């Protein structure tokens, strides 16, 4: 079966390669050198000039977000999210430590920008954690992680997120791995079909604060929910999820879950889910209202999409939903207006556990033969779609419907252009592709294999990103950059859409222990609790000698009283595994239990001034007082 697909597509692929070869030649400049030079000029951002766009990469299992500029593709900064990041003192102070909890890593796949009326509003970036089933919200005002929600109940493998609805009402989550619920219940994987449960989740986003809360969940069979996108325009109340295991296999997945030609995608009416909860059509499971879709009609519909689909992407109009079957050489275009008609007329081809399955032939507009291994689709806002082809290492540009009768008869005609990428592309991103008005100028291809594209780095290789100019009829390769492991999806937003601060205004600092005047900076003791209200300013800590004794718990509230751009200070404490960074106008709190006597120098870790090296002090820890020491001795022998 698989072999047959490959056999039939090889000639088509060869054909497209020849086509591409011809397209690469410039009529006036056969060598293409001039072409490459002008391409480089367009992406060149001279020293002192700034990029037009932000590019927010998911950092994969680094747990972080990488921020680059576009079109330069230069890495600018990393936003730590799910893993400690000493460079920013992330995961050391009390607040970020509590946010991370016991986890020291996460797996970020799909960043999503907050939206208002289907357009980016530049407020927040949401990212998922596929590993520990969490969701995080980063504020684009200060590029810092504000909230980590989770582990989300009843969900294991938060892959199909984060996808934001038209006005950021919800971030939607699909569980990739189904498990027996509630969490902690044992059922052997051989009982997979009966005992394991899939779940689609709506996470409510507070319109002002952005605070995320688990709102509701929809119970599904254990299909392995994969990717998703949200609707807009006619589909604004809907969200779409692919799955790759309608077979409900539990072992040897690469074979056993690839048996059916089509897997069921979920078409979720999240407004109907909201209503079902309002009408009490749910049962509480682990504290979350869980909707059984067979008992709440109108919430969930299935649509078979071939084969083992991965990405499912809504176009800017909200009418065309494109599902890419990674094991077939075509991508499936669904007409959402026909979906609405089919729902209305109950035009179903069957049902699965009480949930209707939409009639494929009634709602599918066509299967576009884009090439081998289609994964994800992005849009330029001019009626074109761009699909990444993993197996073929190509981006295919093709024309969205409406198609002419002639085109419809032979959909190869709507495939307009192909460009090689290096190699094995996963996601691709066009700025604003998931909004009503994509920017439509640049496409970034995020490739999984960089083999041989860079000077050697030993056996562990970085990822490659390639910048492609999509302004003309033909795509043009512009430049290439490398990132650490491992970007999956990314988001692009115009830099002027963000209102980013450069310092925390003093007036906004509401930390109860903040001190701004050197005369207020001090250390105080209450029992075995030592509290230090410390100031950091060029180039000193006040106080710079802090006394304590073994057995104390010492809490530093350190305020950076600077109000100048870039004047961050850090405090690293020798041998006590503490490193906190305080930005201008910020107060951070960190706590240490002192167990050893001695002198522990601390110093500024962020180069701040000509006398940065002198910005230091001492934490002087006396041995425990006699009574405490006796108690300690009496306990220790038993250890």
């Amino acid at each position: 079966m698989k072999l047959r697909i490959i056999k039939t597509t090889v000639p088509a692929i060869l054909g497209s390669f020849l086509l591409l070869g011809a397209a690469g030649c410039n009529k006036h400049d056969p060598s293409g050198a001039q072409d490459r030079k002008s391409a480089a000029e367009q992406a060149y951002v001279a020293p002192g000039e700034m990029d037009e766009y932000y590019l927010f990469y998911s950092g994969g299992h680094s747990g972080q977000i990488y921020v680059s500029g576009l079109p330069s593709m230069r890495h600018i900064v990393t936003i730590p999210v799910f893993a400690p990041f000493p460079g920013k003192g992330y995961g050391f102070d009390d607040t970020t430590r509590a946010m991370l909890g016991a986890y020291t890593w996460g797996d970020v796949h799909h960043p999503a920008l907050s939206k208002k009326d289907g357009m980016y509003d530049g407020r927040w970036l949401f990212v998922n954690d596929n590993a520990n089933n969490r969701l995080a919200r980063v504020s684009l005002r200060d590029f810092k992680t504000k909230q980590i929600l989770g582990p989300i109940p009843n969900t294991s493998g938060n892959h199909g997120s984060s996808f934001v609805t038209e006005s950021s009402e919800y971030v939607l989550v699909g569980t990739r791995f189904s498990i027996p619920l509630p969490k902690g219940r044992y059922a052997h994987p051989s009982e997979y079909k009966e005992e394991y449960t899939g779940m689609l989740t709506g996470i409510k986003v507070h319109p002002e604060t952005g605070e995320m809360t688990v709102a509701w969940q929809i119970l599904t069979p254990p299909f392995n929910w994969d990717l998703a996108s949200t609707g807009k325009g006619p589909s604004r109340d809907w969200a779409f999820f692919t799955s790759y295991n309608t077979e409900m296999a539990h072992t040897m997945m690469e074979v056993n879950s690839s048996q059916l030609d089509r897997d069921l995608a979920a078409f979720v009416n999240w407004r109907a889910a909201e209503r079902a909860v309002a009408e009490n059509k749910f049962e509480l499971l682990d504290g979350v209202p869980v909707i059984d879709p067979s008992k709440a009609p109108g919430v969930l519909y299935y649509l078979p999409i071939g084969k083992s689909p991965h990405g499912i992407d809504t176009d800017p109009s909200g009418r065309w939903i494109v599902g890419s079957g990674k094991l077939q050489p075509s991508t499936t275009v669904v007409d959402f207006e026909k979906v609405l008609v089919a729902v209305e007329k109950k035009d179903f081809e069957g049902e699965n556990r009480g949930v209707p399955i939409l009639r494929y032939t009634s709602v599918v507009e066509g299967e576009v033969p884009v090439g081998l291994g289609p994964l994800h689709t992005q849009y330029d806002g001019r009626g074109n779609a761009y699909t990444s082809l993993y197996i073929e290492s190509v981006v295919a540009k093709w024309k969205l419907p409406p198609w002419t009768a002639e085109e419809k008869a032979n959909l190869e005609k709507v495939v307009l252009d192909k460009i090689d990428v290096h190699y094995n592309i996963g996601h691709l991103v066009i700025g604003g592709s998931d909004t009503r008005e994509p920017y439509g100028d640049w496409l970034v291809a995020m490739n999984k294999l960089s083999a041989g594209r860079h000077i050697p780095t030993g056996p562990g290789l970085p990822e490659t990103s390639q910048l492609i100019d999509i302004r003309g009829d033909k795509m043009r390769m512009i430049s290439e950059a490398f990132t650490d492991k491992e970007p999956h999806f990314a988001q692009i937003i115009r830099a002027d859409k963000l209102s980013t601060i450069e310092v925390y205004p003093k007036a906004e600092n509401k930390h109860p222990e903040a001190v701004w005047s050197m005369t207020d900076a001090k250390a105080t003791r209450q029992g075995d609790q030592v509290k230090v209200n410390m100031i950091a300013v060029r180039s000193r800590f006040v106080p710079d000698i802090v006394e304590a004794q073994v057995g104390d718990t010492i809490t530093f509230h350190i305020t950076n009283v600077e109000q100048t751009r870039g004047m961050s200070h850090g405090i690293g404490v020798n041998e006590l595994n503490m490193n906190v960074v305080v930005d201008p106008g910020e107060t951070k709190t960190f706590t240490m239990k002192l167990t050893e006597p001695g002198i522990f120098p601390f110093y500024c870790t962020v180069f701040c001034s000509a006398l940065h090296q002198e910005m230091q002090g001492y934490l002087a820890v006396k041995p425990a007082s006699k009574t405490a020491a006796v108690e300690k001795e009496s306990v220790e022998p038993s250890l």
Partner: protein
Amino acid sequence: MLNQASKTGKDDGAPETRAHHSTAEEPATRRFLRRERLFLARPLNLASRLVLLLGVAFLIGSFFFPLWQIRLVAPQYRDGLELKVYSYELRAGNNGQHLDEINLLNHYIGMKPIQQADFVEMTWIPFAVGLFVLLTLRATVFGRMGNLVDLFMLFSYFGLFSMANFYYRLYTYGHDLDPKAAMTIEPFVPVIIGKNQIANFTQYSYPMTGSYLFLGFVLVLLFAAWLSRKEKTLVE
């Protein structure tokens, strides 16, 4: 001769002068004093008085504009740190943060923090400007050339004193340096008008609209005098 003599006593400027030259019986000093008395008593015409009201507007307007601006530019402060001097306050850029920053940087060379409270002149200068407003209104009503001379002299003194005071301030800041400071630099005087290099900073210092209004006031006084130069002094 006769012809000229017949003109004696007329208030017409030039011929009168020539006539006095030729009047042998009056000593030169008395002649001078008489002419001076006549000049100071010369009335101001309507045009002069209207122009004086413009001068009043300039003085009042000076409260709304800075008198001076000092800007400090360094590679890492490309947009500059800005300090604007008003007659009644110091106003620093970025809601006052630039002054904090200047003081923070100055602590490395042991300069005293620049703070509003130390500028006692910022209480008396507004008072003085108010006084000049009243004196100018008085001149407008009394309408004598002598009032303009008073105003010109007093205001010039006020201006020169303020400038000297400003210079003294800057001199003190640049010379009263803490010997224990981290960096030792030669005592210096920040430039008052123009550009100056202090370590990594280029200092720009220039008068602003408020000062130009003061200058405009002086020109108004001169213009008002000029407008009434041909008025006749009433001799009782």
